[in-house]
């Protein structure tokens, strides 16, 4: 459980309002990434006390992230860990979700070497022994505010009666362009007409990702490790790169293209199926 109440602890505890530490500060900042299945919490924290920082670095103390929404989840963090992933089937983000970082001792800690306390403790600190598994500090609380969807403009359409095929997918400079030979193929005027074009969107994404793999994979390889490549210069590729990394996709390959599409988009095929069903239903 996250802990909020200011109270008097039996020994000095590092918090943002502590009067026992000379420079009391324990700041936590969290940001979020997500895809269809998981949340990734990116954690950034700053502890003002070198004594405590050292304990964390040596493993004598442990940073623990607490996510509290419908119940509590505790995550022990490695000293350099900056992210944790939690599946959406185990965490629900809503306005009552709070996050806090605690530091816990992994062994008995002697405060004799703690130079960061106020002078009041000079006389006593050599006698202060904090037992194992005890709290050393807690951070501010970060509260989930809400999220907004920022749409990406990735697709354009054109009517081209001169086409030699019914549909042509073109990878443009900034967008994927679907060329239609007949206006009818766009399903204009039909309710939910957008959804009927989803199969073309899917095909367009596939084509674009295939080129992406071809373009950015190592010689002879058939996959791209998104954490290794530099940001693409090509505008369309950059949009794809941005979309994939934001959705926590690490690797895109010939084998997992459909999976990647599923992670970076919101139920393309399901919405198409829903629109067809509705049309059938309305036709009755």
């Amino acid at each position: 459980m996250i802990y909020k109440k200011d109270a008097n602890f039996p020994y000095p505890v590092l918090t943002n309002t502590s009067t026992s530490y000379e420079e009391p500060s324990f700041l936590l900042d969290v940001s979020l990434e997500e895809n269809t299945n998981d949340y990734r919490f990116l954690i950034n924290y700053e502890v003002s006390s070198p004594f405590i920082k050292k304990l964390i670095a040596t493993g004598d103390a442990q940073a623990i992230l607490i996510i509290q929404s419908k119940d509590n989840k505790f995550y022990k963090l490695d000293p350099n860990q900056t992210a944790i992933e939690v599946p959406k089937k185990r965490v629900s983000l809503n306005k009552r979700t709070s996050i806090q970082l605690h530091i816990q001792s992994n062994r008995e800690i002697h405060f004799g070497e703690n130079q960061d306390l106020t002078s009041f403790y000079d006389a006593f600190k050599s006698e202060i022994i904090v037992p194992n598994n005890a709290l050393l500090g807690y951070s501010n609380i970060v509260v989930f505010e809400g999220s907004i969807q920022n749409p990406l403009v990735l697709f354009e359409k054109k009517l081209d009666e001169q086409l030699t095929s019914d549909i042509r997918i073109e990878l443009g400079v900034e967008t994927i362009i679907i060329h239609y030979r007949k206006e009818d193929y766009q399903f204009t005027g039909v309710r939910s007409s957008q959804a009927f074009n989803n199969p073309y969107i899917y095909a367009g994404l596939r084509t674009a990702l295939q080129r992406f793999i071809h373009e950015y994979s190592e010689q002879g390889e058939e996959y791209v490790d998104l954490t290794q490549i530099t940001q693409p210069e090509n505008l369309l590729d950059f949009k794809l790169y941005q979309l994939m990394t934001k959705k926590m996709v690490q690797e895109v390959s010939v084998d997992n293209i459909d999976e990647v599409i599923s992670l970076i988009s919101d139920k393309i095929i399901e919405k198409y199926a829903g629109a067809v069903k509705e049309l059938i239903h309305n036709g009755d």
Partner: protein
Amino acid sequence: MTAVTTETSPWKFSPIPNIEESNFNKILERFYGLGVQGLTKENIQNSLDGRLPNSTAPVIVKIETGTINRQDIPGIDHVIDRIKCLEGRNSYTKETIGHMLKSVNQDEVRYISFEDINTKGLTGAKNGQSHSKKDTWGIYAYNKGVHFEESDSKIETSRGGSHGVGKIASNAASDLHLMYFANCDEHGDQHLGGTVQLIEHLYEDQCYRSTGYFADLKEENKTSKFYPYENDFHSVFKKRTRGLKIIIPYLRSDFDSEEEIIKTVCDSFFISILDGRLEVQINDHVITAGTIVSYLTNNQYYNQEISEMKKVFTPLYVKTYKNENPREITVSNGERDYQFKLYFKYDEAIVKGRVAIVRTIGMKIEDFAVKSNATKPFNAVLIGGLEEDGYLKSLENESHTKISAEDIKDPLLKRQATRFINNLSKEIAKIIDEEMKRNNPTDGVMDTKDLLYIIETEFKQDLSNAYGAVKINQGKQVVKTTDVTTQKKTKKKGGKKGSVEPKSTGIKRTRRNNPTGTADELQESGTEIYSVSPNLVERLILNNHEFIQFNFMGIPEMKKKNSCHLSFNLIDGMGEEYKDEFKLKENYAHAFDQNSGSSCVIDDERIKNVSIRDGIVKLKLDLKPNYNRALKFVYYVEV
């Protein structure tokens, strides 16, 4: 042939030599099938037709449903008498008669009335059955299948009233096929008439025609003429202002729906109402140009989801009519051109596209489906002029529910009608196509915002601090402590131990067992209790001792105090305070006042008489072996 009867019954039936027709009038059944919707449309249409020609005031129709005593229905016993004599010859007629007989014993009778105001009413009632074209009372009351024609042909053309069968619509709504009409003419003369549609029957050894008239019969020059009764009847049957009032007692239960009436009024007459030419009251409801929207947006009457509007389109029509600019379209029937105004709205959310065909008199004739475009996403309203009205009227079927060429007998007129309807579809289809192209450019950005997006999530710092930071100020929460980040900058440099940024005083007057509330009264002992901000406290456990130090320097409430009592509230893992969970005597062997050098008494869950020197309290406590070193506290001082 009218032989004088010796009966003084207010209900008159024409005697006939023998019974030929043993069935009820077929039109009754048809109107019964049209329900209260048909009844309402019929009567309101008639009222609109009766508008005062030179007046700009709206026609007001008051529809009332209610209950009256059987005794107050004029001449009812005579009608019931007749009904008891009816003999059906086939199952349908027998069933109908059986149904009537079931109703005759009711003492309390449901009725509906339609009263119009700002209308002409009927003329020449005093003249009774005068056979003069000018006396509209006579034509209305005593002739079947004939309607009077307006002398002003313009008005006649625009008249929506139906093909002489209006009254029967009202009979059909009554279990006993009974209806009354009360008139008040321009001179203020008030008369009451009525008709009842039975079957030919034998009564007191004489056969009679099916229709009964509520009228007086007078002999004049060897012939008999009907005369109406002066209206001295119950108020339900009274008509005191100029106009006509239809009263239908024994209202059929499936017609008795206020909700259906309201919907029909809105669905069929929204144009008249919006244009201020008609106002309708239904019991307590008043539908005017100003109030109609509140009915249209009420879930009780109309489904608000556009995607669900598949049979009723009125809310869409009203929006379209109010918001769109009309276009002019021309529709030809092969012989001449008709000009219409079309209000058109394209909206992809609409599931079924319909055009409301409306007459200038304001009644909607049909939710017209344009050929091959029935599921296109649009909504429209079509209104013509006087000529167009007249032509549309000639195309209407008898129940005013659609235009069609089917019922037209003359082959030429029939051909023209067919052509007209086809051309109408064509013209509107052109506009639908145009709008579709305009709203769906073939070229441009594709809308994928529901498929491809990046989520930006925001987290905020929770600034609220449990102690002393939140003050309830007229119901609003005010965060008193400063932002976490600025506190980082204003470091405390060495200096006073336990001193706090002077934003809050650090102590809060309260009660121990109600720490979040404020104490408005003093304790019984005349002392005050304050909770102490943890910032003012240093607490430390070393070996078997606990040291507690309070720093009250600069706290005004503690200025002149030199002694206090201390009590401890336990704080659990969720931040909850407990007054009684921590027993002082069970945990502390001894309390030692480091300022004074003497012991303090522990009593009554308090450490008593702890000295305060220069604002500082210094306490040393000896711990008992079972002391729990993991606990947290908030302290209270009593001075």
